[in-house]
């Protein structure tokens, strides 16, 4: 009944919490509007009636009225208690996952999300979940505080170093939803996010079965490279500008690269392949051995796709690296 169509000022309702949440939100909103409008109406009325120079009866003004005082303390108090009771009940339900929920592990770190599904499939900055199944996220942070937030599900929970926290939800809609980090965590706090992709249960099963691979059908190698780029979150270290995390790769192809051992080389296809698969062979000047080795993770096909994609980054002004993939599998 309270399922509202998508209005521009209401976030999409995509979990079992959303509908009740909105009902509660708008109830408090009604209260707010009632008190605001009511009080302002009184003020306006008094100003109109008793402004200086008006002919109004000003005799015998009351100095205090205990009955009134009690009324306007007790009535709001009762209202508040009703809201509290409803909220308390709802909040407890939000914090108590059902027994049969499916467990997914989340690790937050500056500035990306790592997610791990029950059978070992891993994702970065994106969470794929089946519709209609209660999902429990067990979360921890590797460094500072983060917070896992999906507005369309109306859920949020801080992720703390040194301790597990928990969050659960059950999606009701297939689609792609926002995933934000809402606890300030440093420089790229606002970019520590991505998508929650809700798919049908069968899709999810298939997706899990083939190891979490979800490249686009009929995709060009560049598009496939882009998908890999996102999947392995290369962009977390390789952004628009050189940062301490990693060099920018925009316009890298064909340039001369200088290494810590004093040698240098031109960035061609071969160099890039080595740089991705065996990054420690040659370390770029000014950097450390921080880039992970991908020799176990990427096959030659994929390296080609990645290189082709990286090549395109020099051509557009803003690298596609910063544009998220919108719902690959809606």
């Amino acid at each position: 009944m309270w399922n509202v169509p998508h209005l521009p000022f209401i976030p999409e309702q995509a979990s079992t919490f959303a509908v009740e949440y909105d009902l509660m939100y708008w109830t408090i909103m009604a209260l707010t509007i009632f008190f605001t409008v009511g009080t302002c109406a009184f003020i306006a009325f008094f100003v109109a009636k008793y402004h200086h120079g008006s002919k109004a009866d000003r005799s015998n003004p009351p100095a205090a009225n205990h009955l009134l005082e009690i009324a306007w303390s007790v009535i709001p108090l009762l209202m508040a208690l009703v809201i509290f009771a409803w909220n308390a009940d709802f909040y407890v339900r939000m914090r108590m996952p059902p027994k049969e929920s499916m467990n997914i592990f989340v690790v937050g770190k500056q500035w990306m999300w790592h997610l791990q599904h029950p059978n070992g499939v891993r994702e970065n900055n994106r969470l794929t979940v089946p519709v209609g199944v209660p999902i429990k996220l067990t979360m921890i942070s590797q460094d500072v505080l983060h917070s896992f937030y999906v507005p369309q599900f109306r859920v949020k929970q801080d992720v703390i170093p040194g301790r597990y926290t928990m969050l659960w939800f059950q999606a009701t809609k297939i689609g792609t939803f926002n995933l934000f980090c809402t606890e300030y965590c440093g420089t790229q706090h606002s970019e520590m996010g991505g998508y929650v992709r809700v798919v049908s249960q069968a899709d999810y099963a298939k997706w899990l079965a083939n190891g979490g691979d979800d490249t686009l059908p009929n995709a060009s190698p560049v598009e496939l490279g882009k998908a890999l780029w996102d999947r392995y979150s290369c962009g977390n270290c390789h952004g628009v500008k050189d940062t301490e995390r990693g060099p920018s790769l925009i316009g890298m192809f064909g340039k001369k690269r200088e290494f810590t051992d004093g040698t240098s080389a031109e960035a061609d296809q071969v160099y890039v392949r080595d740089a991705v698969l065996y990054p420690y062979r040659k370390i770029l000047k000014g950097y450390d051995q921080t880039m992970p080795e991908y020799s176990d993770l990427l096959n030659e096909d994929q390296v080609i796709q990645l290189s082709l994609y990286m090549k395109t980054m020099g051509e557009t002004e803003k690298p596609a690296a910063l544009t998220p993939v919108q719902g690959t599998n809606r």
Partner: protein
Amino acid sequence: MSHDTHSEEYHPHVAPISTYFKLLIVLMLLMGLTIFAYNFDFTQMFGEVPGTFANNIVAMMIACTKATLVIMIFMGVKWASKLVKMYVFLGFAGLGFFAITFSDYGTRHMETEPGWEGQKQLKITNVNAPVVDEEAVQRATVGDGGH
């Protein structure tokens, strides 16, 4: 309340040194008592209560007694005005505010353990649920091995 009282001569309270000396002795004794209590196991005396707890309570009780004595006599609160007494009370009552936090640290373990026990594999309840794009999945699966 302030300007209208014009007392002729202002006399602050002066406690005799002997009072202070007696207090010093009492404080020393109490210190000895804490040290004694430190090496004494209260477990038998308090029955079920674990020794740590009982010992802590005793130690803190002695410390509070000492503190009260110092405040009352050395600091002269015993002879001070109501206002001063009120602020002394306020200062220590303020510490009470911290106590709410114990309902955080005391109840964290009572919450659903966000742990590992729920490691359930997904049970597909409706295998025939409409797949969004059968073909796409097919192609995607064929297209790339993934590892």
